[in-house]
């Protein structure tokens, strides 16, 4: 499972340019599902027949895109100005390595050296306008010749590492880990027919999800996400939202969505009955594709089953192997249960 997550997480896929991820997922889903195809939004949609016809249309969804950077301007001296796609804190950027453009040229995000800053700025997060990507070219002409220009995007280049007792870190675990979980489910001998969606553009306004929901018209949509865990000792307990090693996170409410209460309780009961640890998300923050899936067409009942993830939207997202295993188990049971819900 970790290998599958790693493979997907290492691919570049800034919002709106998910091509590499899409190609990989389409190839894998094509081999596992009964039908897999892409749509105009750039989503990969798939359908897998179960042993029985489902009583309700159940959709499992994860998003393919990751936060990243878009080159906005090339300075005369070859430094690249950039915007962020998705929400990225500037203080995770100075010194970060990136891969730029389709050629994946290595670059580094540069900030003014701390030594030259006025005293009152030495410890302030830099402004985005003061940060530049440097690829080694010292003129705009050389940048152009390297095939890089405005509109090209860049992703974090951090590598994938395991550390501590069962932890792992990489860019883009939000939400390639979710994508990997969906592909894993597709391998299973499922009880009921299930629809799968791998969304584009989650980090830029949930736009892929709107299109996917319109095409599939699910009765029940389960979003499989990476959700922010702030379970570190410098954050007070009431602000931690959720914690690693405590199993899948079930949301009853977040910044975008009031989740279906009955599905939330049903998922919790399934977990309890099967001895799978789970946790509620205890902070109303963030949002995900459920916000879109819930309101398209005649609407859908929504649930979010998430992997707790530290340091979201950085080059070093951190997850724990046990959460991946427990979330995979719970999702399998949810699929085999939700497909049997009548008149959803």
């Amino acid at each position, binding site marked *: 499972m970790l290998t599958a997550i790693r493979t997907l997480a290492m691919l570049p896929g800034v919002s709106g340019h998910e091509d590499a991820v899409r190609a990989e997922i389409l190839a894998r889903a094509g081999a596992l599902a009964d039908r897999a195809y892409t749509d105009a939004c750039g989503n990969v949609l798939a359908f897998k027949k179960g042993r029985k016809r489902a009583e309700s249309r159940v959709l499992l969804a994860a998003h393919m895109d990751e936060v990243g950077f878009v080159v906005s301007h090339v300075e005369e001296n070859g430094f690249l100005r950039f915007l962020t796609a998705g929400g990225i804190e500037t203080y995770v950027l100075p010194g970060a390595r990136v891969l730029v453009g389709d050629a994946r040229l290595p670059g580094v995000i540069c900030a003014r050296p701390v030594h030259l800053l006025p005293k009152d700025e030495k410890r302030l997060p830099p402004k985005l306008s003061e940060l530049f990507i440097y690829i080694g070219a010292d003129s705009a002409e050389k940048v152009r010749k390297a095939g890089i220009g405005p509109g090209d995007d860049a992703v974090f280049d951090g590598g994938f590492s395991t550390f501590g*007792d069962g932890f792992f870190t990489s860019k883009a675990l939000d939400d390639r880990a979710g994508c990997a979980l969906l592909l894993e489910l597709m391998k299973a001998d499922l009880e009921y027919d299930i629809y799968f969606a791998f969304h584009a553009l989650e980090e830029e306004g949930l736009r892929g999800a709107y299109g996917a929901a319109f095409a599939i018209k699910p009765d029940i949509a389960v979003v499989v996400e990476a959700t922010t865990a702030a379970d570190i000792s410098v954050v007070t307990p009431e602000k931690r939202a959720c914690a690693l090693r405590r199993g899948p996170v079930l949301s009853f409410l977040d910044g975008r969505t009031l989740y279906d209460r009955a599905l939330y309780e049903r998922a919790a009961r399934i977990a309890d009955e099967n001895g799978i640890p789970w946790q509620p998300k205890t902070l109303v923050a963030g949002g995900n594709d459920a916000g879109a899936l819930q309101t398209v067409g005649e609407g859908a009942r929504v649930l979010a089953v998430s992997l707790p993830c530290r340091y979201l939207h950085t080059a070093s997202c951190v997850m724990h192997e046990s959460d991946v295993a427990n979330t995979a188990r719970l999702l399998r049971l949810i699929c085999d249960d939700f497909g049997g819900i009548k008149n959803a």
Partner: protein
Amino acid sequence: MDNLVDIVQNLSKIYIPCGAERGSCDALCKRLQPLFEKVETDALGNILCLARKGKAGEKRLMLEAHIDEVALVVSEVDDEGFVRVTSPYGMDIRSVASKVMTVHGRRPVLGVMSSVPPHLKSAAKDSEPLEWDGFVLDVGLDAQKARTLICPGDRVTFSGEPALLMDGRITGRALDNRAGAAVVLRAVQLLKRRPIACELWALLSVQEEASTKGALTGAYAINPDIAVVVDVSFGRMPGVETHEAAALSGGPMPGMAPILDRELSKRLCRAAEECGVSFQPEVMTGSTGTNAAAVQRARSGVRTALLSVPLLNMHTSGEVAALSDIEDAARVIARFAETL
């Protein structure tokens, strides 16, 4: 250690945290032996290397570069197993969040420096200064296990290996001052094939980031007549003005400052001209912020010159230098030594 890329890459792969250099320096000593007649260390951990024994009446030239890198220091492992740190050596606090780091504990322990994601941050936070006690290093271990591997006082450095960018740029941690150390080693390499009339030493010094301590005792021991200190300085980028920085790949930066020997500074410039190397003079006052300040006041004083390599992102995980500047600095120093 043959070509320049190998020299720089091999040097910047090694972890040599400031104030805890000894283990790494011992290993480095072995690798330096083929290049030198004699390699030894002193009480602080400096590496003193004799490249050419002088004849009677010849001057003694010392090439100096600090070999330590900025590091954090573990203050405690807290009850949840997270590592708390202090920063005595000038690491850029704006560059640590979410970086992969290594604790040099009982064995190397990998961790991720914490960050708080945008979802949980208030808008006001952007105008609040970052504090070291707002960060923890996440090593993924419970307190008991973490404490068996990590102790207060252990050093923490950025993690990872250098990489090449286009046009001969190299990026990585600790190029401050492995770039300078590479200049020194490359200059010694060049001088092996040339006749010189001076005794030649290389000093790879420790604890520069802790206010230039190693260079003081190292220079005392070597007792040079003339010293060339090699360090990094500020590379030009948008927002960093022409007068306070030099262009990467624009050539090395001969220092001009009251504490530096005027005649030697001019000789460095002349040496550059003689080998057709473009250079970018760097004018400073005060201590120069380099080991030149320590070397100059060793014993009864040492005539000292300074040559720097332009660097971007100093004291972050992603410093950047141009290999051509490193090579050119070495050529200038070799020429300088030839003319003594």
